[in-house]
């Protein structure tokens, strides 16, 4: 029986820039950062209160996939095709304000929904995430 999800992959266009975005802007913690292969590293981060859940910041690179796949995937990521996940927070207005000040791009400002208050932001590659404060 499956018990938990421990890793999820997010395809990023530039690992260095993703590292900065996820740690310095979102405030996530680096779990593992080891060099792997010629143009990438094994880089995982976790939300501050969820150390057992690792987001694998996986580079879209020719060494990992065919050139055709890499080119297609890069275009798709860039144009915001992938909605990855929902993050929750205790206070969405404070979190929104902090991320906004840090330059995170929001495509939806905090808005009341039937389940709580929700905003949507994009990472530095184009992946989007929902930020929610659940009722």
């Amino acid at each position: 029986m499956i018990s938990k999800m421990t890793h999820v992959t997010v395809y990023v266009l530039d690992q260095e820039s993703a590292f900065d975005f996820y740690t310095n802007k979102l405030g996530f913690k680096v779990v593992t950062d080891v060099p792997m292969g010629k143009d990438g590293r094994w880089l995982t981060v976790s939300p501050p209160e969820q150390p057992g859940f690792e987001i694998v910041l996986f580079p879209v690179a020719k060494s990992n996939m065919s050139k055709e796949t890499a080119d297609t995937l890069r275009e798709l990521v860039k144009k915001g095709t992938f909605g990855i996940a929902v993050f929750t927070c205790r206070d969405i207005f404070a979190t929104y304000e902090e991320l906004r000040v840090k330059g995170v791009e929001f495509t939806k400002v905090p808005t009341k929904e039937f389940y709580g208050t929700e905003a949507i932001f994009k990472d530095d590659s184009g992946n989007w995430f929902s930020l929610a404060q659940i009722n």
Partner: protein
Amino acid sequence: MTFTILGMEDPQYPKMYLYRRLVQAKLFIDTHYAEPIDLDNIADEANFSKFHFIKLFKNIYHKTPHQYLISVRIEKAMELLRSGTPVSIVCYAVGFESLSSFSGLFKRIAGTTPSGYLARQQKLRTQRAESPLAFIPGCFAEKNGWLKKTQF
């Protein structure tokens, strides 16, 4: 009265000007944790009475500004220790004024002494350098051809 945010006037928004000041205070701590921060000054700058400021800050961050400052300093200390910086340097680099208060607070928050933490992290670093694949789920390593190169 409604408050404007990003040009939107919406009565469902709470008092955003309060949030702005509290977030600014939090970010001030995030940036200046290594300096001797006078939390009274932050309250003044945010235009709050000290009591009101602490109460609002705690509502949002579940810690008083002082507790938050300490937690940021310890967090940064852990980062520095992970990279191998000696304890006596880390202590002052993150804004503590004495080794004993640093060690005491570190132990209370991290559950181990700074030197114990440093030693354990050094060991982990060595292991990681020697066998990086032990830290990567096998499926990813296999998919990327890392297993074949290094182990078989």
